[in-house]
């Protein structure tokens, strides 16, 4: 029977120690929860690998800039009678404003789409162990998903040894959480 194992940490350094240890022990299906972004956590898990969000922003900027300039140019081109005599039909300086605004607008909306996609929002399918109100207040969390047998015991011991103030586990078929360890 697989279980979710959850550790609650009071201290950031204990959490980082736990992440380092679990990576060495080849655990890969886990979630870290924290009330604030900490670069130590990101470095410990992702080794400073940049987020793919940047590609969304760049693509949005290119699409927006091209689209804005094309919109302004084609509108001028299909209505040549509106031109004051002697002035260019497609005039770069005034269209720069439209191009710039469209670039920022579409890049911003693409970045928003990136957050929704990569953060998996709305995040309604996270396991119940991730829904602890302390994680948005003053505690850090580490949740292992679907552990069985010896691996489960190893995870509990790892959390305990790293300084978790509370360790608990819940079986998939039984939602009741069993408190395995709580620091005095």
């Amino acid at each position: 029977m697989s279980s979710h194992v959850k550790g609650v940490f009071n201290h950031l350094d204990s959490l980082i120690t736990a992440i380092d240890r679990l990576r060495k022990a080849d655990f890969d299906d886990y979630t870290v929860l924290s009330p604030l972004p900490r670069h130590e956590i990101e470095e410990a898990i992702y080794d400073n690998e940049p987020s793919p969000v940047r590609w969304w922003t760049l693509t949005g900027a290119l699409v927006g800039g091209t689209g804005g300039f094309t919109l302004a140019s084609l509108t001028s081109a299909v209505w040549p009678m509106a031109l004051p005599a002697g002035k260019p039909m497609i005039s770069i300086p005034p269209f720069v404003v439209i191009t710039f605004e469209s670039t920022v607008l579409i890049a911003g909306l693409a970045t928003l789409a990136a957050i929704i996609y990569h953060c998996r929002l709305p995040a309604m399918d996270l396991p119940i162990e991730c829904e602890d109100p302390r994680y948005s207040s003053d505690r850090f969390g580490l949740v292992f998903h679907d552990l069985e047998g010896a691996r489960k015991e190893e995870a509990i011991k790892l959390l305990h040894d790293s300084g978790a103030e509370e360790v608990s586990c819940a079986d998939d078929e039984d939602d009741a959480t069993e408190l395995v360890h709580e620091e005095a």
Partner: protein
Amino acid sequence: MQNENAVTYGLVNKEVIEPLFKPSLAWAAIFAVDLLILAFGVYCWSYQLEWGMGVAGYTPPVFWGVYITTFVFWVGIGHAGTLISAILYLFRARFRTGVYRAAEAMTIFAVLSAGLFPNIHVGRLWYVYFLFPYPNQRLLWPNFKSPLVWDVFAISTYLTISSVFFFVGLIPDIAAVRDSNRNPIIKKVYNMLCFGWRGTDTQWRHYMAAYGFFAALCTPLVVSVHSVVSWDFAMAQTAGWHSTIFPPYFVAGAIFSGCAMVITLLVPITKIFKWENYLNILHFEAMAKLCLLTGFILTYSYIIEHFIGWYSDNPYEWGIFVDRATGQYDWIFFMMVACNCVIPLVWWFKKVRTNLWGLWLVSIVINIGMWFERYNIIASSLAHQFDPGAWVLYVPSWVEIGIMVGSFAWFFMWFLLFVKLMPAIAIAEIKEMIKPPLSTDTEEAA
């Protein structure tokens, strides 16, 4: 932040979230008065819709008056929020953390207020969609070489991106409000508002990357949006408007008035909500110094504008500047100079800029002065154009004044609702300023 060691993550949640949802009698009374004023503003607008633009005080050739003045005023107020949240974020200015959420909210509500005025100004509200350059099947043929079309793009982009930036910043804090509340309905609503945010490692990683990009995208917007608004005037041939100094002059003025409005709003809120741990005199002093800097740029712009008017040897150009200072609008000119250039100089004295009353009163004076500045630019130039036969005196009607006052009530209505429903201090970012809890601290304490 005051006494960083005494503030813990849990305390931040408690102190920022506690004042939410429970309206005090004072809040309810202020809100009721605000709604009454707003109702008067709505009445004035409906009166204008019924009887037409004749009820506004427009006197040909002055067709840009209080409405455009107030539009530019609100766009200017909307500047400081994005300046503080985006530019100061990129510069890692620590004082921004306590201030920026309220400043961002102020930006959104100010741009919402500004957005009312093109609708009011066009008169026939039911044709307002003509403003948008949508495809040409209606044979509208939008002219993308017109600064008015640039303005539609600039303001719409600014409102959209600032709103997205504001809302994205709120997501983790809305989750904190959800988790601290026991009411199941409030929990459900806030869970929907924060898209079920839990603060997982994946969420924070992409969120922080995106936040940086938003800040980078918003930074040029701060400069561009008021530059574009200034081109509404500077691209015209009207004397007193047709000037290359307008974009930096308008941007400096916008930051000046926006920072002053942040002080006006945050001084009472800090006192009422007892947020001295997060917003203290150092934050307000930093804002006052920013006002001093931008106020000097503004004063310099006034001087240069007049100097160039004289040096150009163009009688129309010089004539308008002489008329502003000595003609029928002279008191508006002197209000502008007194409120924007002279009175803020008291902030050079540390005693004044570190006194909450000194900060608050001067910030209100600056806001008044900046409204008069826009009026001075817009109305006086139109009332004193090239042909002396067309010189007129434009006096706003009670309908215009009512709508203008109503826009202030509209702005404050949103702000009052915001401080009761959303955390006006950025909880997660305040926590970033605090030393994280470490096991070594506990061992030392033991």
